[in-house]
């Protein structure tokens, strides 16, 4: 099976898996709605019977916006706290779903039922949680290792720079480094899960070591998949900006159109992610000879 076929097969799987995509879409959306609904009613409460925000569809108004956000900011502080917990909670949910997703991919979606899906989720949850925590820790360490020296350099440069050009350069270098190494951490985590899932390796650490070797050895094969994930995000954002330009600041029917478009975009994003996950998984498990033996 060559690499193009792997992508095609991944695409084929994701298209057939509309139920799974919808499930993932719904989980994200429900989590978000839990935050958005009180947010909306707090906004409604803040504005009350005032007409201050009525002309926003014509043009942005800094004064009205500032006065509104000032009133609203206290309520927002509560939200900021809740968002943190919601992110944590959603992390658990996402980790939980991963086992099910991989099971569906492995079984090529042959027998999708919520029950089978949930079972697989349960089986892999604890091990995948360990992987996620490890990845999180690595991301934190990485950020520390890059930004501690970077901030020292920036501080020093600030005492010499004429215009800040050198600071911008340093920050860009640090960001690029962070991006490249961060994407490797992401790939390590992803392949650790595949190794655990496919090869039956018991220990998370051993699987992680194997994943590191695999990713570094076959970087030319695994990295393009990661880049595709990025390209997806960028393309969807571009499409999104274009749509917003067309609809403008939607209210009424244009807002309805906007919502439908937004949700379609997000649904599509879930599907594209499934495509790449499936492709990555096939690359690992079904490549002419499996990537690692």
């Amino acid at each position, binding site marked *: 099976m060559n690499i193009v076929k792997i992508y095609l097969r991944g695409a084929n799987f994701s298209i057939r898996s509309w139920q799974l995509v919808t499930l993932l879409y719904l989980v*994200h*959306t429900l989590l*978000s*709605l839990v*935050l*958005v609904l009180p*947010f*909306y009613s707090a906004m*409604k409460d803040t*504005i009350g*019977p*005032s*007409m*201050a*925000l*009525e002309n*926003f*569809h014509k043009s*942005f*108004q*800094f*004064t*009205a916006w*500032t*006065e509104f956000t000032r*009133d609203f900011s206290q309520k927002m502080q509560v939200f900021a706290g809740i968002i943190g917990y919601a*992110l944590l909670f*959603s*992390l658990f949910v*996402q*980790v939980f*779903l*991963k086992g099910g997703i991989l099971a569906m991919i492995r079984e090529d979606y042959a027998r999708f039922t919520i029950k089978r899906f949930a079972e697989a989720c349960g089986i892999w949850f604890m091990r995948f949680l360990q992987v*996620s925590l490890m*990845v*999180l820790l690595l*991301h934190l360490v990485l950020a520390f290792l890059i930004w501690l020296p970077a901030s020292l350099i920036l501080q020093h440069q*600030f005492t*010499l*720079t*004429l*215009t*800040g*050009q050198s600071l*911008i350069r340093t920050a860009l270098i640090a960001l690029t480094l962070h991006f490249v190494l961060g994407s490797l951490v*992401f790939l390590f*985590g992803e392949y650790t899960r595949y190794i655990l899932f496919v090869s039956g390796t018991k220990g998370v650490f051993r699987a992680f070591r194997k994943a590191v070797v695999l990713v570094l050895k076959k970087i030319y094969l695994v990295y393009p998949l990661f880049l595709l*994930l990025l390209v997806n995000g960028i393309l969807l954002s571009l499409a999104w900006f274009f749509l917003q330009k067309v609809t403008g*600041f*939607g*209210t*009424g029917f244009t*807002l309805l159109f*906007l*919502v439908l478009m*937004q949700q379609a975009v*997000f649904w599509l*994003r*879930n599907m594209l*992610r499934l495509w790449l996950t499936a492709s990555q998984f096939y690359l690992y498990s079904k490549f002419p000879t499996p990537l690692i033996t």
Partner: protein
Amino acid sequence: MKNILLLLFFLTVTQAIYGQAALSPRIASYDIRVELDTEKHVLTGTALLNWTNPSADTVGELRFHLYMNAFKNSRSTFMKESGSRFRGTKAKEDPEAWGWIDITRLSLPGGADLTSSIRYIQPDDGNPFDQTVISVPLTEPVFPGKKLRAEIDFTTKLPKILARTGYSGDFYLVAQWFPKLGVYEPAGMRGNEKGRWNCHQFHANSEFYADFGVYRVSITLPPEYRVGATGVRIDSVMNADSNQVLTYLAEDVVDFAWTASPRFEVFNDRWNQVSVHLMIQPENAGQAGRYLHAVKSAMDYFAEALEPYPYPSITVVDPPLHGIQAGGMEYPMFITAGTVAGMPERVRIPESLTIHEFGHNYFMGILATHEGEEAWMDEGMNSYFESKIMDHVYGEQRSVYDFPRFHAGSAENQRLGYTGMSNPRIAPPARFSWEFPHGGYSPLSYNKAATLLFTLENLVGRPTMQEIMKTYYRLWKFKHPCGQDFIHVVNEVVRKNHGTRFGENMNWFFDQVLFGSGICDYKMASVHVNRIRPPAGIEEVGENKVTYRNIEYSEELYENRVIIHRLGDVVMPLEVKIDFDDGSSVTEYWDGKEETWEYRHEGTRRVVRAVLDPENKILLDLNRQNNSYTLQPRQGTIRNWAVNFLFILQHLFHIMAIFLA
């Protein structure tokens, strides 16, 4: 011999070029020769002071500012008032970082050496460690109208820039660097009952007040340095040590500052007869056009609004980022702005800084009000003009930030700076700059003062306000007006144009918002619409008792009530616009005095919405969101925001899942 010839030539040329009639009373003039040691960051110089006693008093004492001593140690009043602002700097460990000024000799032409009688005084706060003002008792007093000549040798160690002045690397911003005479205010000037020295210490928030004079300054420094300064360069020679000696002449100014750096790129331009110099960091050269456009736009505007810029030159300095604390400063004919690499064209910070600092030439420089005692007349009026110019040149509501979906204007920014204060009642804007409670100086002296002038303009109308400013400037340029002088002009012009429409005078306005600390907030409290039911019960009709039940209205009738509350203590006259369901509307006028006001209307029409101050004239109103009330709310905007928030959250969760799960 050569020197004498040179001097003669010099005098003839300057007389020919600059010998026009004096614009100002030249009370304190200086002839300074100074040398900059770029290794030690030390200035050594001699100043010849020519002072005329402007009063009817016999003056037996001189007072000088030695402002560089504010940077001498952490016990100076400036450092104490600045509080934690400079705590992060390395000044404490590095002796090179501090700055000071010593007078090594002060003598009069008769030979009297007054050096030993110099003593430090602290007229503002009695802080014994503050050495920013000296008193020099004279052996012979100066009689009314008589002149005094003094010769002063001084040494100034420049500090590492932490505010306004000093050095950073090879960049120098040399301000408040020489012994500067205070102002002897005669009786009657600025409300004084009798003559007195007005010579305040160097404070965290303010520094400018001085007499007009002619400054002739010769600066000696290494040849690779590029120099910009107050005034016009009238001579440039090399001395025997291969250093350059640059001579500047500035007439009718209140101060002299200069900058030097070997790195500056210099752009020269013109505005009418005025030469415009921009001294910019080479890496910022791409932004030169932005600076030059801003300063020339400001000159255009002031020429129309007040009078054309009266000096022959203006120098704009773009300081390096490592010395950015010297940015955003104003000196006569010489200002510093500031930017960074990659500053987006749509963020007009360099422009607004340039326009603001240039404007000070009119307020601190030409009107020469007292920045320390009445900052609102300098920073406030100047901020008002800054916003008018920004919004005029770059567009209302988009002059500062100008992105398609996020933009803000300068005037609204001023207002929000004031209304966003955690306690807007903390002080009135009219107060000595060092007496503002912590954090109150800037939002009250700049933002509230500018906003109250905008409110005044909206009340009396733009033509009247333009006449006020023009008249004030014409009457008071080069004369150090005080607040009452301005208010007097306001009262005269408003009465001439509007009679008693706003009362006997406008004092009620200034008493509340300038000398008072009260807040203004009107709230559209509620709108009620009730159907009027036909009356019930019994009524006499002739001999008969009839029940009301039998009476029917031919149409539905409604009782409409619109209720406004005054939440603040400040009273302003208001318009109230009320819209009805049949598309008609009425505008009512309310003097705003009572705590509450009610509009009633009975008829077939129903009120749908009501707005107080519909034209947004009362910009001092702290909260405009509560100025309107609708019975048909449109939730489009917040629905849009909620929908977008949902979309953002979905992606946030999704991205987190990609990286962690």
